[in-house]
C-alpha cells in the first residue's frame, strides 16, 4: 500500500492530487466523494462582485481549451456568507483562491478570509495589477513579491503563490515569491492563447485572447515546474494539462510535490480519481513506498528539499 500523503508547507495532504481553481466546485460531489482529494481549491474569489467576460467564454483548440471566463463572482462578503458554509460538509482542507486588483486589496481580502474552515490561501497573482496598468502581478518579480508580502503580513494561514507562464523569467518570479514569504508555489496558470473562428473570421472567444489549458499546454507547464523547483526550496504544486496518472508522475519527477488537475475534469468528470489511482499504480509498480519519493527524481543532481 503506497503512502500518498505529502507535505505542502505547513499542511499535510492525504493525497497529492487536488483540483485547479476555476475548474471545480461542490457540484462535483454529484460525481464522486470529494474527500478522496488532497485538498479542495475554490474558484478565485474577488473583493468585489464581478460580472465576468462576454460569451463565448470557452473555445476548443486541438488538444486544449481556451477560456476567458473573467472571474465572475459575488465578492468576498457574499462568499463568506453563502459559499464557505457549503464547503464545510467536506473534510478535505479548503484552499481559497484569491484574486485582487492591488497588493493592498490582496492584504485586506486575505485578512477577511482568515477564518475557521479555510486551510490556506492560494494567491492568483496572474490577474491584472491595476497599479501596473493592468499587467499581471506575476509578470515581474517586483509586483509578485509585493502582493505576496502584503498577504503574508495580513494572515497566519499558509500562502500559496500561483504563478503565470506569461513572464520572461519564471524562476526569478518564483524566488521573489519565496523571499516574500510564500509557503508554496502553484505552477502554473493558463498561458495566453488565441483561436480564430473561420466562419465569423473573428476571435473564437468573446473577449479575444484567452487562457490556454489542457494536454497541449502540458510540456510548457512541466518545463515551468522544472525551472521553479530548481529555483526555490519551498514545495511546488504542478498544474497544466494533467490528464493521467503518468502525467502527474512526470510533474512530480520534474520537481512537483503535488499536482492540480483542471481541464481534464471537463472531459472526464472523475479524472482526478483516475489520476490518483495512476500515481499509486506507478509507485507500486516501480517500488516507491511513498509518493513523496518521486519529487525531483528526474534531476541530474540531488533531490530538491521540497520533497522532504
Amino acid at each position, binding site marked *: 500500500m503506497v503512502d500518498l500523503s505529502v507535505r505542502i508547507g505547513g499542511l499535510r495532504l492525504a493525497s497529492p492530487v487536488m483540483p485547479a481553481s476555476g475548474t471545480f*466546485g461542490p457540484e462535483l460531489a454529484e460525481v464522486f*466523494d470529494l474527500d478522496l482529494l488532497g485538498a479542495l481549491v475554490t474558484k478565485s474569489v474577488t473583493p468585489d462582485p464581478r460580472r*465576468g467576460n462576454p460569451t463565448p467564454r470557452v473555445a476548443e483548440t486541438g488538444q486544449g481549451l481556451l477560456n476567458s471566463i473573467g472571474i465572475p463572482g459575488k465578492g468576498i462578503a457574499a462568499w463568506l456568507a453563502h459559499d464557505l458554509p457549503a464547503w464545510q460538509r467536506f473534510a478535505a482542507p479548503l484552499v481559497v483562491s484569491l484574486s485582487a486588483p492591488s497588493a493592498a486589496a490582496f492584504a485586506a481580502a486575505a485578512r477577511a478570509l482568515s477564518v475557521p474552515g479555510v486551510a490556506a490561501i492560494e494567491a492568483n497573482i496572474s490577474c491584472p495589477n491595476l497599479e501596473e496598468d493592468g499587467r499581471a502581478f506575476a509578470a515581474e518579480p517586483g509586483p509578485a513579491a509585493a502582493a505576496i508580502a502584503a498577504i503574508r503580513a495580513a494572515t497566519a494561514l499558509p500562502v500559496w503563490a500561483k504563478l503565470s507562464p506569461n513572464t520572461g523569467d519564471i524562476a526569478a518570479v518564483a524566488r521573489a515569491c519565496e523571499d516574500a514569504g510564500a509557503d508554496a508555489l502553484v505552477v502554473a496558470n493558463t498561458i495566453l492563447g488565441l483561436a480564430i473562428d473561420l466562419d465569423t473570421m473573428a476571435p473564437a472567444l468573446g473577449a479575444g485572447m484567452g487562457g490556454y489549458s489542457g494536454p497541449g499546454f502540458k510540456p510548457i507547464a512541466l518545463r515551468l515546474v522544472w525551472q521553479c523547483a530548481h529555483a526555490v526550496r519551498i514545495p511546488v504544486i504542478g498544474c497544466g494539462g494533467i490528464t493521467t496518472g503518468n502525467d502527474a508522475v512526470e510533474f512530480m519527477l520534474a520537481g512537483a510535490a503535488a499536482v492540480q488537475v483542471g481541464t481534464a475534469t471537463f472531459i472526464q468528470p472523475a479524472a482526478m480519481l483516475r489520476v490518483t489511482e495512476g500515481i499509486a499504480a506507478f509507485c507500486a509498480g516501480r517500488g516507491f513506498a511513498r509518493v513523496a519519493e518521486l519529487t525531483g527524481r528526474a534531476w541530474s543532481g540531488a533531490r530538491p528539499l521540497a520533497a522532504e
Partner: protein
Amino acid sequence: MDGAYPVASHIGAVLVSEPVGARYHRILIDAPALSAAVRPGQFCHLLCPGVYLRRPMSVWRAGPGESLGFLFRVAGPGTAALAGLRAGDTLDAMGPVGRPFSLDPGWRRILILARGVGLATLSLLALRAAARGIGVTAVLSAREPADLMLAAFASDAPMQVHAVFDSDGSSAPAAVGALLAAEIARARPDAVFTCGSDRLLRLLQGIAARENIPGEAAIEQRMGCALGLCFSCVRRIATADGPRDLRVCREGPVFDLHSVEAW
C-alpha cells in the same frame, strides 16, 4: 444510478445511428441506468471521437427499459463525429445534467412551440405528457417540409400537431401568433413550452403574458464542463433579485419562459 453520485460518464453501445431527413441524424445507445434516470429537458455531455471537448446534447428518447436517444443537426466536427458512429461502436455520455421541464400531473393540456432541432429537446416532454393523458398541442416550425421531423417528434403518441414552414410563409411571426391565439382559444393549455428560436421565444413570451399562462423555455450556450464548474455557459436571466448571469448547464437549460432575456 447511485443515489449518492447521480452524475457519471456512461459508456453505451450504439444501437442505431442514421440520418433523419437532409440535415439531421439520430443515435440510440444502450445505457439503461442513464436512460431510466433522465427527465425531459435534461441533457447529456457527449464525448465525440476525435474532438477534445464534450458536446452538450438534449435527450430526445429515454425511459426505464428504453434506449437513450439523441437527435441532432450536423453542425461541425463534434456532431459530424457523432454522426459517424456506427452500430456496435461505443459512446461516452455524461449525465444526466440540467434542470428538467416541469410536468404537473394535474395539467390537462400543454402547448409546445418548437423550431428546427428544438423539437429534439421538446419531444420527450410531449411523449411523457401524452403518456399521462395530458393533451398536447404542438406547433412545429421548419424551413421547409423536408426539414420537418414530425415522426421524430411525435413518434406515434396522440397529439395535435401544426406544422408551419418558411417555404410557404406560414412560419412568419404574425401567422404563428394567430395560430397560437386560435389554439389557445380552442383548448387553453395549462402551460406552454418552447425551444429552438429566439423569435418564437419572444412571440410566445408575449402571448403567454397576455393570456397569463405559465411557461418554460430551453436555451443553449457554449459549454465547457456541463457540471456547473466553469461558468462558461451563462445567459442573462431575470430573477427575483434582478437580472443575473445563470449557468445554462445548471440553473438551466430550462428556465421560466419570462425570465429569459431575448438577446
